[in-house]
């Protein structure tokens, strides 16, 4: 071993630091992922190729395409950042060419991995990110000119198959920097397919209806009781029994979110796996009537709605809950001047919440603006979630 090769602890620290960076941005990589990653390195899978290193690190550390984008950013930051001393880069390069044993973590260290203070890491990451923004340009240049750097020879293809772009080698960092997986992040707003997929999680299976499937257990016990004379029993197949009602706010302050809400609506409508699906509209707040039509036509009284839909129906309300306080809490406070509501909007909301066993409210307004008094009041009645894929998942777990 020559002096230029980093000692195991140094190389280990390098990767461990990267691993912590990955964790600090919210990618749920555990000690199991770390062990898998180091096992792959130890087995010499990486060879002298940063692109392969990137591929292997991603395959072992990241378990969801939603985190690919974050991972790419971490990778770019860590391996192309100008704040990394050049000597360190060189050490990495040499290490990649002659992989040596990964440091073994002691049990204490492994335990530490599990409960490392996320907040500190988060802070560290943010500080670095700020730094990175300022010096980003320099970092990229450095890749461009450094002919011997590890970034020069990443991305070659041993079998000679081009993978996008020009035929030449693209470095792993450049590929990571392209942020190809941005659209898979789950905290961004959603498209129809994603919503549909999220709604599928609501599926509830149960046995009901025609007996068309052979029931083995029942058959065996019936046959045994029948003194061994075969007695075949049937059971109904497992089916989804979930009923869903969607109530949507339209018009006024909801206009900017119309596209988003219509996506949610079409996804829910396409979802064929609900036993029953109903949708209604309201304007601003729910009072004594809801409407079957988005233009607030074809009304149905809210009392009738509650009589008609059983409590086990899941209620999903979509609205910004952003209104003048009197529109929510006052009698005769409805936004339309001809509308004389004798019960306040808030009371109607409470009645709905009381009727249905499970409810959720999806709000297209970002959570940090939820300080508004009516949003606060409504969120005390209904569990409120952001209308993002993440929020929708939260709402769905409330509805389960």
């Amino acid at each position, binding site marked *: 071993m020559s002096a230029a090769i980093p000692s195991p602890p140094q190389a280990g620290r390098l990767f461990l630091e990267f691993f912590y960076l990955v964790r600090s941005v919210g990618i749920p990589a555990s000690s199991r992922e770390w062990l898998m990653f180091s096992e792959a390195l130890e087995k010499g*899978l990486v060879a002298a190729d940063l692109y392969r290193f990137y591929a292997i690190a*991603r395959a*072992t550390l990241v378990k*969801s*395409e939603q985190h690919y984008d974050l991972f790419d950013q971490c990778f770019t930051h860590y391996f192309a950042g100008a704040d990394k001393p050049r000597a360190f880069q060189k050490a990495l390069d040499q290490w990649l060419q002659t992989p040596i044993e990964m440091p073994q973590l002691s049990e204490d260290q492994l335990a530490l991995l599990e409960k490392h203070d996320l907040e500190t890491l988060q802070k560290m990451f943010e500080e670095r990110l700020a730094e990175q923004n300022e010096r980003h340009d320099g970092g990229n240049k450095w890749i461009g000119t450094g002919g011997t750097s590890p970034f020069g020879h990443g991305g070659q293809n041993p079998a000679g198959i081009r*993978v996008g*772009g020009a035929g030449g080698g693209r470095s792993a960092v450049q590929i990571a920097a392209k942020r*190809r997986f941005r659209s898979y992040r789950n905290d961004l707003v959603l498209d129809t397919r994603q919503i549909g997929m999220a709604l599928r999680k609501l599926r509830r299976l149960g046995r009901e209806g025609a007996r068309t499937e052979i029931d083995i257990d029942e058959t065996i016990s019936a046959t045994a009781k029948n003194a*061994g*004379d075969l007695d075949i029993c049937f059971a109904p197949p497992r089916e989804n029994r979930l009923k869903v009602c969607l109530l949507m706010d339209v018009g006024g302050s909801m206009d900017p979110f119309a596209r988003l809400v219509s996506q949610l609506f079409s996804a829910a409508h396409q979802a064929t796996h609900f036993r029953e699906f109903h949708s209604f509209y309201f304007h601003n707040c729910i009072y004594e009537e809801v409407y079957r039509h988005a233009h607030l036509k074809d009304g149905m009284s809210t009392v009738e709605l509650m009589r008609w839909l059983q409590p086990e129906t899941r209620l999903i309300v979509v609205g910004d809950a952003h209104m003048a306080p009197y529109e929510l809490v006052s009698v005769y406070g409805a936004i339309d001047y001809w509308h004389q509501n004798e019960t306040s909007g808030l009371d109607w909301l409470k009645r709905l919440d009381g009727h249905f066993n499970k409810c959720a409210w999806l709000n297209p307004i970002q959570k940090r603006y939820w300080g508004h008094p009516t949003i606060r009041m409504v969120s005390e009645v209904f569990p409120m979630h952001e209308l993002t894929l993440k929020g929708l998942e939260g709402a769905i777990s409330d509805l389960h």
Partner: protein
Amino acid sequence: MFTNFTGTENYIASIELREAVNVALALERPLLIKGEPGTGKTLLAEAVRDALKRPLHTWHVKSTSRAQDGLYVYDAVQRLHDSRFGDKDVGDIRQYIRFGALGQAFVNEEESIVLIDEIDKADLEFPNDLLHELDKMAFTVLETGDNHVAQHRPLVIITSNNEKELPDAFLRRCIFHFIAFPDEDLMADIVRVHHPKVKQTLIDEAIARFYWLRNIPDLRKAPSTSELIDWISALIKGGVTEDELAHRVPFLGTLLKKEQDLDTLERFKNRRGRM
């Protein structure tokens, strides 16, 4: 040296995908593949089979599948039936044990590949029920007490369409790869594999058309790779030239499968005033 998977003549794999397969082979862990429909998730297992020359056991998961089915099924009804009408020795339970794909791979003595296709179709608990067997690569037949341990840990390839989220404990045990939709260059390579004799200009024009169509906003179901390949077959059979492609999209039905999408396309064209 490690077994190195580099794709096959008929299956073009990106570097990331190849490395994911190689890591899974080296570490002997299951490989979880996710991706849009039509990006070749299931085909990967066949490509690995062809490249490594190992037998492939396929298990198509359905919404009613149970984890147990992949290991073995005890055919109680057949045994009951035989006890009454058959002339077999019903005391020999082993003849009523049928191994599933995973069970077969564990029982066989050669190195093999198991494909668990569309694991997300099954019940939410399904992946958790497989944890132990995938870790230990062993199982016991309760009815006979036989314990089967895999001589060689098979390469287990699991595909998911993302219909359901998989449990964390399950994910932690897997190597993960998400097949992104191919970019135009990779797509050209893929098409070439399927249509080696077609004129390059036609392929280029068809691919350009295809991505133009895919990028129309609000499509309910954007066309996938396999649909592009079918479409090009149709173009060839229909004798469509690349010049015609510049003006219209023949055999649109092979690409767009939803009525709303045809409307969306019309609206998009009208808005642009051209095609």
